[in-house]
């Protein structure tokens, strides 16, 4: 049991270290979301220790409920955008090999309806865009989660590259927070590289 206690302390210490949120300093950052995605922010962000999926990485300024940039880094065909919390009762839609770029906002929408009990979500605008030279889509949306009933706005840019989905979104409450950091997101997505 003495050894068990020692292992516990080591595991506990290492998991505490893993739990810490990390500083994203200005400058280039590679292998975002364990993928070939990279970005060069010109200001500081926080990378959350929490991961919502194998190839998902979260950046925030004030906490993910108040402003959140989500990097979906190369989600392969047959996989959902997020880790499924209830596969049996609330399965998530999967990335499909025949997906068009216009299916990307719809995939996000149906994922949110299942995962976050979102009753109200609207894709508001969508237009063709380039993600590091790859044909993609840029779109805006608004939604309200059932748990906190805060109206949030979102913006995303995504593309299918080499049969994998790359998508970067920014979301924040429509009151105050969305506008506060929108410009930082716009600057960030101009630096995305694959």
């Amino acid at each position, binding site marked *: 049991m003495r050894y*068990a206690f*020692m292992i516990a*302390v080591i595991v506990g210490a290492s998991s505490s270290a893993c739990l*810490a949120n990390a500083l994203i300093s200005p400058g280039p950052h590679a292998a975002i979301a364990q993928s070939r995605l990279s970005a060069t922010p010109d200001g500081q962000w926080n990378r959350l220790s929490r991961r919502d999926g194998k190839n998902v990485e979260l950046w925030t300024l004030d906490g993910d409920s108040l402003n959140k940039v989500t990097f979906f880094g190369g989600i392969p065909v047959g996989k959902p955008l997020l880790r499924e919390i209830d596969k049996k009762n609330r399965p998530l839609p999967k990335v499909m090999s025949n997906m068009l770029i216009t299916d990307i906002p719809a995939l996000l929408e149906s994922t949110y309806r299942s995962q976050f009990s979102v009753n109200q979500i609207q894709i508001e605008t969508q237009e063709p865009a380039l993600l590091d030279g790859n044909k993609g889509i840029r779109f805006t949306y608004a939604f309200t989660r059932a748990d906190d009933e805060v109206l949030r706005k979102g913006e995303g840019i995504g593309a299918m590259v080499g049969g994998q989905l790359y998508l970067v979104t920014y979301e924040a*409450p*429509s*009151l*105050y927070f969305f506008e506060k950091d929108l410009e930082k997101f716009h600057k960030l997505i101009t630096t995305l590289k694959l």
Partner: protein
Amino acid sequence: MQFNTVLRASLLACGLCASTMAIGQEKTGNKEGFSLAPGTVRIMLMRPVIQVGEQSTGGMYEPNADWTTQARENIAASLHDAQSKLGNQITSYAETASGEEPVITQYSHLFGTVADSVIEYQFFPGNRLPTKKRDKGFDWAVGPGIASLKSLEGADYALFITTRDEFGSTGRKVLQIFAAMGGVSVTSGVHTGHAGLIDLKTGELVWLNADRQMGGDVRTPEGAQKRVKQLLEGFPGKPVETAALAGK
């Protein structure tokens, strides 16, 4: 044998982590330099956001309309009793012809989200955000837009209150017992409460009292009284506490 050792160690580690988190949690914060003297400001008590329901075996929240109605009545009565003892002029928010009701409701929900972010990223020191660590201040807000609301004119501060209670279902309690027998910690029930003051000139959160394990069963008048007392503990400008502090 080796597997057993590792398993026991892992469970112990989880326990250590959980207890460290619980011990490390703060419950109150206020903006640096903020204080209130009794009888100096006008405070608008916003309509509390109250949610009561059940926690399913799987941990999902299932709202209960009857419990929520009971809790709303009980908390309103307890707040009515408490507001005259807070040291400053407290006025309950009333709907006006301004048409601002939807945006006021959004501010109430936004306050709850900001308060929950404070719990998550400030009150748990081990989970702080690096960009917010450096100044060690209390820098949270709902934004300056709240200053332009006509229906809040005349007030210096807004007092927001939110509570969310998820009572563990029978299935959840059974799961908790079996999990404990296996050495795994499963919580049954969530009882979150936030009370916070927003400066109506700047939109800054200047005082917050918040916890995810509050006491008092809000479905009963006695429980609601206990909850309200806990929510307003340390309320700035409260005469008794000011006198007690002066005596220290």
